[in-house]
């Protein structure tokens, strides 16, 4: 359509030139110049109107594009549904912290609400709180560190649920934070205490255990 406009424009331009020529041929001198000066503003206004039409079409094209999300409107919201039926509305950016959800959105399976069958609403609330904070305060390292420290002051049930949820939802930072917290809890324990903690059976004979202690005596100092 733009080409059509330009085509018309050049046609009209040529028409004008031809008229100019004919004017020139017929009337020389002052009257000719007067004619030309009149035609000149006409052509300018014509060109300007072309420009406005062009810009108008361009802007209308832009606004009809589905990819352009205007900043004035609200960000896209994703609905998550926990295992006990509760729904949570979160911003897309927050939901994308979970790689599992991110892949679902990219594969276009996330039009209605996304069911998360393994995660209860309590745990999902905590996970969303974590992701929100990490999206909002992305550049503030110190603030995130203190937030993480406070966030991990939870009881063992919640920590276990968070670990399993972040593993299922594939949120690496939360998973690593949880694993680091558990590691900090068990790093001071001796092997027997660790066995009790994880319900592991001791399959070493006493001699074998003694051998292991001799291998790295420096850690048992």
């Amino acid at each position: 359509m733009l080409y059509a406009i330009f085509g018309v424009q050049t046609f009209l331009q040529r028409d004008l030139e031809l008229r100019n020529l004919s004017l020139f041929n017929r009337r020389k001198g002052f009257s000719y110049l007067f004619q030309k000066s009149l035609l000149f503003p006409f052509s300018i206004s014509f060109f300007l109107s072309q420009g406005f039409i062009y810009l108008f079409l361009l802007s209308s094209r832009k606004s009809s594009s589905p990819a352009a999300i205007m900043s004035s409107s609200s960000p896209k919201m994703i609905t998550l549904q926990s295992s006990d039926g509760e729904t949570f509305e979160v911003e897309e950016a927050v939901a994308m912290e979970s790689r599992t959800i991110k892949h679902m959105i990219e594969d276009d399976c996330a039009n209605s609400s996304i069911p998360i069958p393994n995660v209860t609403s309590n745990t999902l609330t905590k996970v969303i709180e974590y992701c929100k904070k990490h999206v909002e305060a992305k550049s503030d390292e110190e603030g995130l560190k203190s937030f993480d420290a406070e966030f991990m002051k939870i009881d063992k049930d919640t920590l276990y649920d968070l670990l399993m949820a972040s593993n299922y939802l594939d949120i690496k930072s939360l998973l690593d934070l949880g694993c680091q917290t558990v590691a900090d809890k068990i790093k001071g324990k001796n092997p027997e205490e660790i066995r009790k903690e994880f319900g592991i059976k001791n399959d070493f004979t006493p001699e074998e255990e003694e051998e292991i202690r001799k291998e790295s005596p420096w850690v048992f100092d």
Partner: protein
Amino acid sequence: METFHHAQISIPLPYNFTITSSNTGSIPGPAANCITTPWMDSRIWSRLPQRLIDRVIAFLPVPAFFRARAVCKRWYGLLFSNSFLELYLQVSPRCHWFIFFKQKSLKSNIYKTTNGGNGADRINCEGYLFDPYETKWHRISCPLIPPGFSPASSSGGLICWVSEEAGSKSILLSNPLTGSLTPLPSTLRPRLFPSIGLTISNTSIDLAVAGDDMISPYAVKNLSTENFHIDGGGFYSIWGTTSSLPRLCSLESGQMVFANGRFYCMNYSPFSILSYDIIANQWCKIQAPMRRFLRSPSLVESKGKLILVAAVEKSKLNVPKSLRLWSLQDCGTMWVEIERMPQQLYLQFSDVENGQGFNCVGHGEFIVILIRGSEKALMFDFCRKRWQWIPSCPYIHGYRSYGDQAGELHGFGYEPRLATPVTALLDQLTLPFQSFSG
């Protein structure tokens, strides 16, 4: 951290005793059954899938990891499992430890008395790990190192051992945690006690051997440097890259610090810093700040920048005596003072030090200052801007050596790693191949 509530003691006391768990290796007896704490709940943690348990183990600090190996056979075997080591190398946080060795006096090396022979073995066998996060010392033995080698540098979890004999130098890389030992080809030129610089990344090994060329069996001169390079991209330089040192330089510290693509070394009388650009294969000299007023300067690296630590004292100066840190700016010639020891602390420090001098080592955000002739040491934490005295190494008490350097420690920054896959590059050196040089 955790508290245990043992079975209640039936004494009418106004409060309950709480006993904290200790790091003893002893297995608690049947009394362990009645321990109930908020964390000891195998109902929950036994349901954790194996992959997540492995991930938790990967986050354990190294001493805790070796203790955890005694839990069961599966956990014992994790150290040799490729999948676990891959996970470990991905997630394990970097920790900036230090390793120290007893200083062997030069006399015992040169004269090689029989007394020195016995003691030398003992000295080589032990390294003292320092954990700056818990300010704890550990003693680790290195029994596989052959006699006649001394530790020179460390990087990427590996320690570089250099042969002490005059002549062409043999070099070994060892991981003290797993006991692995990988030899490097010997250097080409004969040297006496060269300075060694080592830097290891995930895919490359770079080693520079500088100075102390033996121009005759009884004379040494600081003439040249040899460079060893190997990387995963297929480039090798087996001591083929050489470069000449600047004239009249004296590298006495024996150690080179790596920062930002260059090796830096302290040059004495007058103080200046020699810098070796690995890629350009060139040495240059950098002037030290306040060079006429420095005492016991040392170089350390922190966050990719070179830092000079030295005491400043000269009676003619108007400034008070102090211990200062300067950081080398990106231009490569300007120094900016970034930190100064608080005056009160410096008074305590100079009381202990008494003019004998000090050595300084740095790793990550920590700088450890060892005072010569004393067992005391100071530590500075860059992140928290905190100076603190650290407990002296408990394993060298009462050790009196023959010679002047009684029980003195020298060391470098060390990062404990369970696996160092980059040594696989060195295994390829036994095959014939095309080598780049220059």
